[in-house]
């Protein structure tokens, strides 16, 4: 099995092994296992998926099938900070498209991708439940409400 990922870094499997130990024999544990692994490694890398497949006695393709079905899972590395701009209904009617556009302009990346310095990933999300503060963006764990295109640059600076 491979022990380096696509950036040729050594992978430490011990965290994945510990997570798999915790869910040993638990019915239907694939999704929580993948969630925890993504939490530990940032994304789902091929060697780790292979390990999960082996330990859970499934085919790797089945796991990739599940991982690609859900928006939460990522097969590519992401930035240090994740910016999720809400594009739910309430935010849409309050001008979310302009906010997304502004983030994209300020960070100089299209939606769904990561800046070259690997600092930010820009994503769209369908509602984070703070609709009354629309338009809204979530940066890492923090919700920023009542946004306008004009306060986007300062928010990005603040996070840096």
């Amino acid at each position, binding site marked *: 099995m491979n022990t380096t990922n696509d950036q040729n870094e050594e992978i430490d499997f011990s965290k994945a092994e510990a997570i798999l130990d915790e869910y040993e024999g638990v019915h239907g544990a694939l999704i929580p296992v*993948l969630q925890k692994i993504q939490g530990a490694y940032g994304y789902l890398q091929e060697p780790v998926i292979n390990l999960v497949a082996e330990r859970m006695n499934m085919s790797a393709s089945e796991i990739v099938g599940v991982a690609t079905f859900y928006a939460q899972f990522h097969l590519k590395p992401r930035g240090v900070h994740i910016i999720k701009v809400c594009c739910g*209904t*309430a935010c849409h*009617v309050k001008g979310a498209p302009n906010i997304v556009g502004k983030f994209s302009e300020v960070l100089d990346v299209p939606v769904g991708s990561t800046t070259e310095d690997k600092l930010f990933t820009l994503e769209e999300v369908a509602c984070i439940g*703070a609709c*009354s*503060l629309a338009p809204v963006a979530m940066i890492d764990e923090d919700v920023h*409400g009542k946004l306008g295109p004009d306060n986007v640059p300062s928010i990005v600076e603040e996070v840096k």
Partner: protein
Amino acid sequence: MAKKINRSVRRKSAAKGTKIMIGMGTCGLGAGAKGVLESINEGLKKQKLSVDIVPIGCIGLCTQEVLVDVIIPGRTRVTYKNVGQDLVPQILEEHVRDGNVVKKHALSQMHYGDNSCTPYKDLPFFDELEVNKSQLKYVTGNCGIIDPDSIDEYIAQGGYLALKKVISTMTPEQVVNEVSKSGLRGRGGGGFSAGWKWGSTAKYDSAEKYIICNADEGDPGAFMDRSLLEGDPHAVLEGMIIAGYAIKASAGYLYVRAEYPLAVKRLRHTIAEAEKRNFLGENILQSGYNFHLAVKEGAGAFVCGESTALQFSIEGKRGMPRTRPPQSVEAGLWDKPTCLNNVETFANVPLILNRGASWFSSIGTENSKGTKIFSLTGKIKQAGLVEVPMGTTIRDIVFSMGGGIQKRKRFKAVQIGGPSGGCIPESLLDSPVDFESLKQAGAMMGSGSFVVVDETTCMVDMARFFLDFCAKESCGKCPPCRIGTTLMLEILNRITNGEGEEKDLDLLEQMCDEVRTMSLCGLGQSAPNPVKSTIRYFRDEYISHIRDKVCPTATCVALHRYEIVPDKCTKCLLCVKNCPVEAITGSRQEEVFLHKDKCIKCNLCYEKCNFMAIK
């Protein structure tokens, strides 16, 4: 974090009883509650005041967040609105230290515990506020009032009494009967009878049976379930435990949307607390009834709100709906009988068993009993949560509770029920909200999102928005949904790009029917609703996009002509300053003019204009 601070403050506490409560639901946090909390802690330290700080959930007045409540022993509880960090010192000095309300920033007062505390003069009571007058806060009664992390506070409000009553005095059949008699219908969308569902699950004999709480809340623009889970999680748990008793379930799951990390954290804590008190777990309250609950986090797929897809997702598979029968009540999760209800449905259960089915069915309309929580958002003055008796008119909700439309604009429509629902135009504002009336009007109760739009919103763009959502979220299993929504979206994209043709409307209507009738699950079956209802009520707007290539609200960028509308132009000259190619000229004295030969259609002027004076 908040909890830790809370404890450290409590240790120093000398004069007992003064409390500061701060709204730390997702909406409060978004409005800056963390910073306010820090300022409060700093201020208390500086002033050497000892006070308990309690983070609470959402009381429904989201536009007024951050909300901070102050309780001084013997006096009513005072709520401050729109508290920023700068306001904190004043509240601490004048109210917490000296006992005088800062009137200018106080919203209201309320009694707590018994009604013996002394009210302040000239401050309205919470229930007297215009927004609350016609509301009936039963299900949301504890939200934003009690500390959601404290099981004792829930118990003090009568929590777990219903469970005790059920376990000690009722048989499972009696519980099912009571819920059937109450007329409670599922709050997750379809409005299916909860009693019937429980009864059917109870009928099947199996050592393993499951209760599932659907907390996926996929409708973008809805946050009722989130507020309940963050504000009064024990009520949902109690409802589930009672349901488990009624159908003789062995275990239950709460399937919570991935985007609600706070709700997940709170539920895990709530479950642990309930287990400690033996309301949950083995041999509940010495009755021999065992019931276990676990939280499952969703992973970001709208279709997983559909009940069969949700069950596959819990099983660790791709969340794709399946054909029925068998119904879930017969063979659901792991092929065992499963009863799946929405968060709000469960939260109604303790109320029904405490107060009785006939009390519950005395609220509401003929066929829709009880109250319904709506999340009121969009171009409305006062966004937030409202709980009203079924049958309240849409007008009441939008204008009395929501305070009407922002910025003196005109009401245009309200989208009810999200991507599965439809738009209700001004002419139907007096329709009551109940399951049947909404369906008749072409909308749907759905989850209960109320997104209000004004005259500046393009209805064709709204339809396109929802279809885009459904097409992206379609699981792809059945072709009518996967291909149908994509093709419909293509047509709508054409129309909003100015490439629509006369025949498109007929084609759209025909496809609406086809996708609705042929799709496998509710996602595809209801995806055409927003398109259908906008064509039904706003046909003119479609026609002007198609025939005249004009978007009446100037929302659809591709149709912009880049002309100044003299009636609306205030000569603020923002566009002149911002135009990168100097295509706009004008001054305070002269007319503003846009030179089309120079314009590069970058749209900056349109975005900058505050008066819709560029079309």
